[in-house]
């Protein structure tokens, strides 16, 4: 089973091939090459996975050391891959969903002038992500971590001719750097205290860590995770990341990259088990993120922004699970979320595609008649994310919330906040579905100016750094991307089959995803049985009776959210303005506050630092230079160039030395 090196190597090969020959292959061959590379990677992952399935639990891992990466004395870091129960599951869904999204992108990016460049980045991203999860030590993971960050930057600003897209990419990159600092510091700290960066060794040695060190490591890694996985307070980049092409949003900013923080903390469950109160903090940040982002999702009009805030919110659920040491729940929700969120994003992409790149939901309406396949598949995604049984989202969300309910005295509070976020989720997802597919009126037929009431939300669309998916390059020579080609006589048409096929497959997965881990008996908890051998930390789900009550309450909450949304947006019993408060449309003004703080006192202090650098640091450096020159000038007369004065110097010197020796000897 040494073939696991093929898993990251195939996308790397695809990347290299496309760098060299991508332009020549062109549209659509380049896309197919990229898709095949990732699909091949999936086949290898699945083969290794099946092989491991036949082994007893403690032998289910493969380590392949490709070469010594950093042989520095006693500090050896190998370029090693580690395929075990956890990274295997990650590999399967990264390559599986990745391949589907590549396939989708073959259709979605059709006609883009930089078609092959898109797939170059996409393959590089998959390769980096696989290195991130397969690395057997922290440095390998960091390599992948930075790789996915760079690819995310490149892909968010893929249509960089629009300054909004370019700055959205920069925002993502800069925000992520803050988190990366935490990653590096935590790695250094672990290396100093344990002398290794290898995961197996770290988890084995973790009980020897001092409690404070373990807490600090956990908090620093959590800082890294808040950056990459878009948690409070660093989530602001993710909604803007929607400036990238929709397949990118689905792959990177919903299904895979943003879950790497959850993966990292799960991988280090041994350290987390020693981390004490850091776990509680993670749970609270997670549940608050879920709540804050779900609130913001209620009042967005850009279809992709709704989904972006929804992603932030769902990631919050995963961190709630991590913080309550319910790693199985976190991974379970990560996987089902990857299914239904990729589905929803790709569905949104199909809608955007059919609506001439209009992303404002207020100009949609009644699309179910025109886009039946998209409607049905997105409907399944909607039921899954809202937590309606028996769809996958219900099972995983219920497991997360039930785990939280049982987590100490604060558990019921965490559970209540979580269930509130879940109700909001059902509400805004129903709103999205109604505004897009129902509502009777076909809003694009009426004039844009009439149909859009002036208000806070409009202002938001202008203020936001990255409002729109700016359309294909074919349109990008157009002066303004905001002038969409959506005309009153537009007829929405279903997307091509390469785009619909991934939707159908993902919809199927979103339906049956819950089968992975059914809570009815322990024999049905396949995922838990599979993953638990590599996890540390204890959590206990509540007893069956409580579990039933919680599940019924959760379902009731979801139905409540859907029903209320139905009353507002379909029956118009309540004015939408009562729900869509400006504070929600502005996402609690968090972005604006950052802008004010960094722009005001922040900028002043940066200037002060720059001043200090110029005056004190540079002053010292320049001072050394000019001081040396000054001394040199003072010493110049000593070198007159006259041989005779040198001779005089030698003579006087000899006499002095002689005198010194003579006097010393006579003493």
């Amino acid at each position, binding site marked *: 089973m040494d073939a696991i090196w093929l898993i990251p190597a195939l996308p790397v090969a695809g990347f290299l091939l496309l760098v060299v020959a991508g332009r020549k292959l062109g549209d659509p061959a380049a896309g197919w090459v990229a898709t095949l590379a990732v699909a091949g990677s999936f086949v290898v992952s699945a083969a290794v996975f099946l092989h491991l399935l036949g082994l007893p639990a403690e032998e289910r891992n493969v380590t392949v050391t490709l070469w010594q990466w950093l042989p520095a004395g006693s500090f050896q870091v190998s370029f090693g891959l580690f395929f075990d129960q956890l990274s295997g599951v990650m590999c399967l869904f990264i390559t599986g969903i990745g391949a589907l999204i590549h396939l989708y992108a073959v259709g979605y990016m059709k006609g883009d002038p930089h078609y092959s460049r898109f797939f170059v980045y996409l393959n590089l991203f998959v390769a980096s992500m696989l290195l991130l999860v397969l690395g057997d030590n922290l440095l390998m993971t960091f390599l992948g971590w930075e790789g996915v960050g760079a690819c995310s930057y490149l892909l968010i600003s893929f249509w960089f001719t629009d300054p909004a897209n370019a700055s959205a990419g920069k925002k993502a990159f800069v925000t992520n750097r803050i988190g990366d600092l935490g990653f590096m510091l935590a790695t250094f700290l672990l290396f100093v205290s344990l002398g290794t960066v290898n995961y197996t060794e770290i988890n084995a040695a973790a009980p020897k860590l001092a409690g404070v060190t373990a807490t600090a490591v956990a908090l620093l890694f959590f800082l890294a995770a808040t950056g990459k996985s878009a948690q409070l307070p660093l989530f602001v980049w993710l909604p803007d990341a929607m400036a990238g092409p929709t397949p990118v949003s689905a792959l990177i900013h919903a299904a895979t990259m943003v879950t790497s923080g959850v993966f990292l903390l799960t991988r280090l469950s041994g350290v987390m088990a020693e981390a004490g109160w850091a776990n509680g903090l993670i749970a609270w940040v997670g549940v608050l993120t879920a709540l804050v982002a779900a609130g913001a999702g209620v009042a967005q009009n850009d279809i992709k922004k709704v989904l972006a805030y929804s992603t932030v919110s769902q990631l919050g659920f995963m961190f709630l699970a991590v913080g309550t040491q319910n790693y199985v729940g976190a991974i379970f929700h990560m996987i089902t979320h990857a299914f239904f969120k990729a589905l929803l994003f790709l569905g949104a992409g199909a809608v955007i595609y059919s609506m001439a790149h209009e992303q404002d939901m207020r100009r949609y309406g009644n699309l179910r008649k025109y886009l039946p396949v998209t409607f049905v598949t997105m409907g399944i995604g909607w039921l899954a994310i809202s937590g309606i049984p028996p769809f996958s989202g219900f099972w995983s969300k219920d497991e997360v919330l039930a785990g939280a309910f049982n987590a100490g005295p604060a558990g019921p509070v965490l559970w209540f906040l979580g269930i509130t976020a879940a109700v909001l989720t059902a509400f805004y997802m129903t709103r999205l579905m109604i505004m897009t597919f129902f509502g009777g009126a076909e809003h694009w037929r009426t004039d844009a100016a009439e149909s859009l009431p002036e208000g806070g939300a409009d202002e938001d669309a202008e203020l936001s750094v990255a409002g729109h998916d700016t359309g294909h390059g074919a349109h990008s020579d157009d002066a303004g991307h905001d002038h969409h080609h959506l005309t009153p006589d537009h007829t929405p048409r279903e997307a091509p089959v390469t785009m619909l096929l991934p939707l159908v497959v993902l919809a199927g997965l979103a339906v049956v995803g819950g089968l992975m881990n059914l809570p009815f008996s322990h024999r049905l908890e396949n995922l838990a049985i599979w993953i638990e051998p590599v996890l540390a930390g204890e959590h206990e789900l509540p007893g069956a009776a409580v579990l039933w009550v919680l599940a019924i309450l959760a379902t009731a909450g979801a139905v409540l959210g859907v029903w209320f949304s139905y009353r507002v947006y379909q029956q118009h019993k309540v004015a939408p303005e009562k729900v869509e408060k400006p504070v929600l449309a502005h996402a609690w003004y968090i972005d604006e506050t950052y802008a004010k703080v960094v722009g005001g006192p922040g900028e002043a202090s940066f200037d002060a630092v720059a001043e200090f650098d110029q005056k004190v640091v540079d002053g010292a450096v320049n001072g050394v230079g000019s001081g040396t020159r000054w001394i040199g000038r003072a010493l*110049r007369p*000593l070198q007159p160039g*006259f*041989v*005779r004065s040198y001779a005089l110097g030698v*003579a006087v010197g000899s006499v002095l030395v002689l005198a010194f020796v003579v006097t010393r000897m006579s003493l």
Partner: protein
Amino acid sequence: MTLQLTGSWYLVLAAMIFAIGAVGLMVRRNPLVMFMCVELMLNAVNLTFVTFSRLLDDVGGQAVVFFVLVVAAAEVVVGLAIIVAIMRRRQGANADDVSLMRG
């Protein structure tokens, strides 16, 4: 009393020759004369070596003299070559004119 020619006479003579050479080196500007002054100083030292060799009955001092002679010969070769090169470029020889190495 008869004048006894003791070792100290030789030493005093050597010191005087050395002083003449040293002063000459510093006050004269003609490179050739300066060269001769250097030779004076070298030979004064040689004389001292030979004297002490005799006084202490140690042949090592005389051996050193041979080394000094060899080095002096080599130095004369190089030094004269430099002087000839300077003489070719300018009329008259003045050590103070050659001060390009001024700091």
